[in-house]
């Protein structure tokens, strides 16, 4: 059968490979796969323009052969993420990006403490143990320390031979050090956990490697938990170890999974916002000039960069617990649903001129941190880091610019968290 086009509507009646029990509207169309190819480094795939207008609740084919739905409008994404009939607990069952090889299927299992893959009430217990540690007040109390860390890294960067990779010199180490201090992870171990996180978030990493990395991270975090059980310190991990609620204390396995979740989520995300946000501002000089002229714009600037860049680039996967309707279409129980945060954040029905980076937007109910009970636990920490980071970077490096053409910056198209792999920058000899 070599040469036979497997796509439906290929002109070969009876050779459709679509499962018979999966009726699809407009069956003459090719099957929709998750759009992943960007035409512009700052914009989501252009396909989302069409989907939002013509097919906002789109039938989506998954790499493992199953079918589900792709949501691209703000209103649908927002309501699904807050809907108790939609589950996060089976979110790992089917990936719209890659089919896990058999030897890595165990990675789909939600493990104790992995609350991002749980529904209430299991989710609620873990979240309750942690939210008090990430309040606005507590994060604001960290500002002087974060500013110090930012300043130290910019001091060091000033003395480096140009061009400098801003990711390595600034964007990655700052949030890494902050989360290390908060959790109680030795910063000396950063090479280890940064390398593991990078491989884990790379969609081309093979199954056996994923399993090995997971085991390494478990061993590492267990040894850290053991050390803090012997000798507690004033950090979040020690606090979790000592914490007791109606259900008792957290098990070692729970502590390992929570610790690793916070460690990975705590540095990769902010690091990419800092680097990609810097690139976006350098590529929009009028916006950057406005920010420089009025540093109080930084709060709005951070929200706008979060909206405009939406680094959780492939969206969030959920599952319908029961048959329900979304945007006028019938979604069956157990169907996987991909909610595209990036497409929602560019929906003109919600944001005027959504494809324009405009730091002047005053109120921006963007979905970059998600929505509903799972909305990012560390978002207030991320805001503190970004505000301190962008403010100091552009103040102290007034002539900061790209050292290569924009189209030569290596983008993280291959990573679950979008951003830049490297950001070569330079400046005139006048850094402060």
């Amino acid at each position, binding site marked *: 059968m070599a040469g036979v086009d497997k796509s439906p509507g290929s002109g070969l009646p009876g050779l459709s490979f679509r499962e018979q029990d999966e009726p699809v509207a407009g069956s003459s169309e090719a099957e929709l796969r998750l759009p992943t190819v960007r035409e512009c480094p700052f914009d989501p795939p252009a396909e989302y323009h069409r989907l939002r207008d013509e097919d906002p609740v789109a039938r989506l084919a998954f790499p493992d052969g199953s079918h589900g739905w792709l949501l691209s409008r703000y209103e649908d994404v927002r309501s699904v993420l807050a809907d108790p009939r939609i589950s996060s607990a089976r979110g790992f069952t089917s990936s719209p990006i890659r089919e896990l090889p058999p030897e890595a299927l165990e990675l789909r299992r939600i493990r104790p403490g992995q609350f991002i893959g749980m529904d209430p009430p299991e989710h609620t217990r873990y979240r309750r143990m942690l*939210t008090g540690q990430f309040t606005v007040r507590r994060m604001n109390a960290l500002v002087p320390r974060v500013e110090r860390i930012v300043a130290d890294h910019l001091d060091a960067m000033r003395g480096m031979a140009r061009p400098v990779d801003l990711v390595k010199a600034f964007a990655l180490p700052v949030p890494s050090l902050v989360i290390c201090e908060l959790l109680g992870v030795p910063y000396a171990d950063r090479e280890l956990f940064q390398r593991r996180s990078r491989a884990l978030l790379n969609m081309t990493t093979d199954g056996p490697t994923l399993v090995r990395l997971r085991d390494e991270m478990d061993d590492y975090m267990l040894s850290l938990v053991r050390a803090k059980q012997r000798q507690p310190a004033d950090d979040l991990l020690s606090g979790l170890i000592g914490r007791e609620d109606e259900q008792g204390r957290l098990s070692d396995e729970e502590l390992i999974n929570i610790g690793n979740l916070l460690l990975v989520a705590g540095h990769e995300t902010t690091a990419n916002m800092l680097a990609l946000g810097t690139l976006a501002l350098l590529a929009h000089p009028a916006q950057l000039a406005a920010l420089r002229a009025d540093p109080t714009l930084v709060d709005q600037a951070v929200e706008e960069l979060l909206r405009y860049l939406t680094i959780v680039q492939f969206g969030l996967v959920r599952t319908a617990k029961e048959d329900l309707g979304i945007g006028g279409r019938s979604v069956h129980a157990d169907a996987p649903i991909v909610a595209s945060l990036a497409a929602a954040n560019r929906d003109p029905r919600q944001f005027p001129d959504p494809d324009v980076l405009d730091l002047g937007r005053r109120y921006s109910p963007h979905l970059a941190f998600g929505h509903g*009970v799972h909305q990012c636990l560390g*978002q207030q920490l991320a805001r503190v880091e970004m505000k301190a980071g962008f403010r100091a970077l552009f103040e102290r490096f007034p002539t900061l610019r790209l050292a290569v053409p924009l189209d030569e910056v290596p983008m993280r198209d291959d990573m679950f968290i979008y951003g830049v792999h490297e950001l070569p920058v330079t400046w005139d000899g006048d850094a402060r």
Partner: protein
Amino acid sequence: MKVFVDVARCRGAGLCALTAPEVFDQDEEEGTVVVLDPEPPATLHQKVVDAAGLCPNSVIRLEDA
């Protein structure tokens, strides 16, 4: 304007305390919403409306006084 919150549904994202700190705070232990001023002055109404709109769990309900 009167401000009501459903603390049981709150998950402590903190957007209210970030947006209208004069009106909302968070519990130190659990991070859940605390209303500092249930009848805020008119100068704060826009901020309170924004905070209610941002809440990821629709915890905040507003009534005209």
